[in-house]
């Protein structure tokens, strides 16, 4: 009988293949933001291949900005069409969620990326080499630092315009990451945005060895975290018999009893779920930059070209927290009594370690790196709240944080001496005396990081702490305010240095940037002030966007 069906089955497959492999049903309109960015990225690769070298830069900048603008328009259209609330559902055969948190975070990522592209395109800061305007990226990434080939490339006026398609691919991955609704999509999205970022880190024009070192570190540690994630996915599949979020959640809740015969030995085995879930969490916490998975952050932030650092610090964090939220709130809410204590520990260690280690830093970029770790801790406090307020506060915090971050790194690109950007803190002494406006803008960003009232940082911090306190995590709030006090110390120290120290004779100068970087900084300041003084509209937006589709 069995052999008969097997033979018969063979014939049946040949006779009627359509029934066995249904054509996937893809809602193209609802995936438009991602598709636009992917399409533009592919187009940008073709631009690299076919457009003459001299006009590539302009075409690439235009293409990137246009793509991001239309992607943002698509997000707004979807949100206006009710996909953020009433029509929220899972698109693309259960692979991608189109719901409030996804759309909100996609909007933030696209805007942050657009502002970052402005800083990528800046060509007025570095002195012109052989009459060619240059940006922050190596003339030819493939040439060995210090070699003849490098000198030739510089002389010929080459520029690495590949950064624009790379950034677009990264954005595409980031757009899917917080929307991914099964573990495989999650993993693919992670790789799609990580690989371009590894490359982007390696292409600094100045201090190329440091930049390449940063890229290698980032790649190696990133590969480790991917491996953890993948291992975790395999274990969870063994537990649930599916990679779909909804299905896993059902199995966790115990509402699914039918057992896949192939997995009969493992399904429902709690050990697999706990270990697998922990490994997946580790992979995500790595991207978030939470202690103890934060080791890569300072080196990579310092070595990467500063515009890339800003982009990475803002957009990666948004995407990774989005994915973390969805995992914890959609897949593992039934397990919260197990993950909450662990996340408590991670949040406390992250807040304290970030703030304490930052105190000893002497490099602006490393300082901001540790500060980003501390902020990851604050955001985790909101994640732990496990309530709608928790989600909306995290969304709001990410919005506030990303623009401050990009703005702050954009200011870092302006302060230069003969060796390029002067990132050592001692060189920033007296900057307020020489360039009061630049120093004042940076001070605004620092005050926002420190969470001083009337800045976006305060609104965000208040939102997550309030959510955490209401969620019963009062102790986390206390640790949070203590680390805020420690963190305030080093932000203030930079302000002291800028305003109260006498400038040194051989100090750096502030280069006047093109309108591109100015826009990035102005957007940062505007968002900081508006979210600080009148955050209600954006809090509403985040509040409406705080329900996950399942």
């Amino acid at each position, binding site marked *: 009988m069995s052999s008969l069906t097997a033979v018969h089955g063979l014939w049946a497959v040949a006779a009627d293949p359509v029934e066995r492999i249904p054509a996937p049903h893809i809602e193209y309109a609802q995936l438009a933001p991602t598709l636009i960015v992917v399409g533009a990225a592919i187009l940008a690769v073709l631009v690299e291949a076919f457009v003459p070298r001299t006009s590539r830069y302009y075409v690439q900048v235009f293409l990137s900005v246009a793509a991001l603008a239309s992607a943002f328009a698509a997000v707004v259209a979807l949100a206006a069409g009710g996909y953020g609330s009433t029509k929220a559902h899972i698109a693309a055969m259960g692979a991608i969620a189109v719901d409030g948190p996804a759309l909100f975070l996609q909007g933030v990522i696209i805007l942050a990326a657009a502002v970052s592209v402005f800083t990528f395109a800046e060509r007025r800061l570095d002195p012109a080499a052989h009459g060619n305007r240059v940006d922050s990226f190596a003339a030819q990434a493939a040439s060995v630092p210090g070699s003849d080939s490098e000198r030739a490339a510089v002389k010929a006026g080459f520029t690495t315009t590949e950064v624009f398609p790379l950034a677009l691919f990264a954005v595409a991955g980031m757009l899917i990451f917080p929307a991914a609704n099964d573990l495989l999509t999650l993993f693919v999205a992670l790789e799609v945005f990580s690989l371009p970022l590894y490359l982007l880190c390696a292409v600094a024009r100045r201090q190329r060895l440091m930049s390449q070192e940063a890229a290698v570190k980032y790649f190696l540690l990133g590969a480790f975290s991917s491996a953890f994630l993948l291992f975790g996915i395999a274990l969870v599949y063994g537990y649930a018999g599916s990679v779909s979020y909804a299905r896993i959640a059902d199995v966790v809740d115990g509402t699914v009893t039918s057992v896949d015969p192939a997995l009969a030995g493992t399904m429902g085995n709690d050990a697999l779920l706990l270990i697998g879930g922990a490994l997946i969490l580790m992979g995500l916490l790595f991207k978030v930059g939470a202690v103890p998975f934060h080791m890569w952050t300072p080196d990579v932030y310092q070595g990467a070209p500063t515009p890339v650092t800003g982009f990475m610090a803002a957009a990666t964090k948004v995407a990774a927290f989005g994915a973390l939220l969805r995992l914890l709130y959609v897949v593992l809410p039934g397990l919260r009594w197990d993950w909450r204590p662990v996340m408590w520990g991670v949040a406390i260690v992250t807040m304290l370690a970030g703030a304490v280690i930052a105190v000893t830093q002497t490099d602006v970029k490393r300082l901001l790196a540790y500060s980003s770790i501390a902020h990851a801790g604050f955001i985790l406090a909101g994640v732990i709240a496990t309530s709608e307020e928790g989600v*909306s506060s995290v969304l709001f915090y990410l919005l506030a944080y990303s623009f401050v971050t990009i703005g702050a790194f954009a200011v870092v690109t302006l302060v230069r001496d003969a060796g390029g950007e002067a990132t050592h803190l001692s060189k920033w002494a007296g900057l307020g*005396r*020489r*360039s*009061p406006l630049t120093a004042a803008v940076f001070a605004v960003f620092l*005050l926002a990081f420190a969470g*001083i*009232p*009337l800045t976006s940082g*305060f*609104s965000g911090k*208040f*939102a997550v*702490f*309030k959510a955490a*306190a*209401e969620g019963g995590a*009062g102790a986390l*709030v*206390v640790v*949070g*305010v*203590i680390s*805020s*006090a420690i963190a*305030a*110390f080093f932000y*203030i*120290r930079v302000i*002291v240095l800028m*305003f*109260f*120290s*006498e400038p040194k004779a051989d100090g750096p100068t502030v280069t006047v940037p093109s309108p591109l970087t100015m826009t990035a900084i102005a957007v940062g300041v505007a968002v900081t002030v508006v979210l600080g003084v009148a*955050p*209600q509209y954006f*809090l*509403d937006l985040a*509040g409406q966007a705080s329900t996950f589709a399942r």
Partner: protein
Amino acid sequence: MSFPLLTATAAVPAVGAILTAAVPAARRTAAKWLALLFSLATLALAAVVAVRFEPGGDRYQLTESHAWIKDFGVRYELGVDGIGVALIALTALLIPFVIGAGWHDADPLETHSSRWRPTQGFFALILMVEAMVIISFEATDVFLFYIFFEAMLIPMYFLIGGFGDRAHTGTDENAAAQRSYAAVKFLLYNLAGGLIMLAAVIGLYVVAGSFSLQEITAARAAGTLDIATNTERLLFLGFFFAFAVKAPLWPLHTWLPNAMGEATAPVAVLITAVVDKVGTFAMLRFCLGLFPEASKWATPVVLVLALISIVYGALLAVGQRDIKRLVAYASISHFGFIILGIFAMTSQGQSGATLYMVNHGLSTAALMLVAGFLISRRGSRLIADYGGVQKAAPVLAGTFLIGGLATLSLPGLAPFVSEFLVLVGTFARYPVAGIVATLGIVLAALYTLVLYQRTMTGPVKDESIRTMPDLKFRELLVVTPLIVFLIGLGVYPKPLTEIVNPAVEHTMSDVKQHDPEPEVEAAK
């Protein structure tokens, strides 16, 4: 809708700050006059507030209420009681003098680059502080209060760290380092206090579901809002810690001598006479109003700390060699009196404490500003560098003496009334505390009179003092009104007590306290 008077009182200096900051580098003098003009406009508005306020009327008057951040449950709610009116009037009154006294304190040196505009910054920051202080006296929403309570640290920090005494600026690296140390210490102490308070503010919201002072007080009085004893105590401690740093109360006071010593005299006045008052004001309004039971629970400890402040501050003032640090320690002693009066939980004590806040502002301003004029003439803050000044500059010495006598609460000058009330109020309930506090008066006589004797009397110390010019017209213009107020309120304090007493009665009923028998008639 009526004219938003309270908003205007805070908005005028804020607008003035922005305009002043925008004045081009070359038009320095215009910036000064602009700042003065706006501070006088604020004073006029504050006078209107005082006139429109009816002492016998509602508890909070001239109220405004608008939705602000719905998600946080925050409303833009303003309203003043008598205590608030008195302190707004004090703030608005002192700022023009601060500006006048600091007229030349922030003129740029030749070494500065042409884009550095210290003068504009100095006066803009003063106005910004004024705006934020006034709005914190007006806010009846805890969150709104907190925002400005914290935000005012930033302009204050730049005022302390960015502008030192003329005698020390520019060349002296050491002085710059000390100043920056003082500014950072100021900020970290206050920021830490504020952040602890933030945790308590969030906790309050979680417990009470509202930030509105009036709602919470009403709900607590009606018994509809019950806060567990331990929670209330923790929240009280969170709030009190921030206010005790700001006030400052021993042992959280150590930032004050640094800040006042390194800042210019007008900024020192701003710190101690204006900004620190927010701390004691908030103890009355928020600690007692929101957490009456916990306040009573904490009273013994607070009283002991206040007594230590009184005696310790006075003892250290006696030992100071630096004029400005001496005034700072004297202020710590006086803040001890204010906190003693607040937590004695008698109506005389609390009326006295409120009057004390106003009078201490006036007397310290007079003493400190004249001390600043003196220091700017000789270029030294050390008492030992002076002697026989009254022979060369009799008017300066005379005004200095009146400021000093006001500080030691000489009868006939305003501080006497308030100090007397505080002592009477304390004595009625805690006789021992009253007796210990009296020590502070004796010590005050010691440190002020010794200060006067060493600097002003005796043989002329050296040539620079023999040729010391007397007070100039601008300086006289700053000091004379202050002295007039000190004498006026000393002889006739009734207008002030009339405004303050009803508010104190409300606070007393918040904490469900009655004056112990036999009643001691408040000075009317």
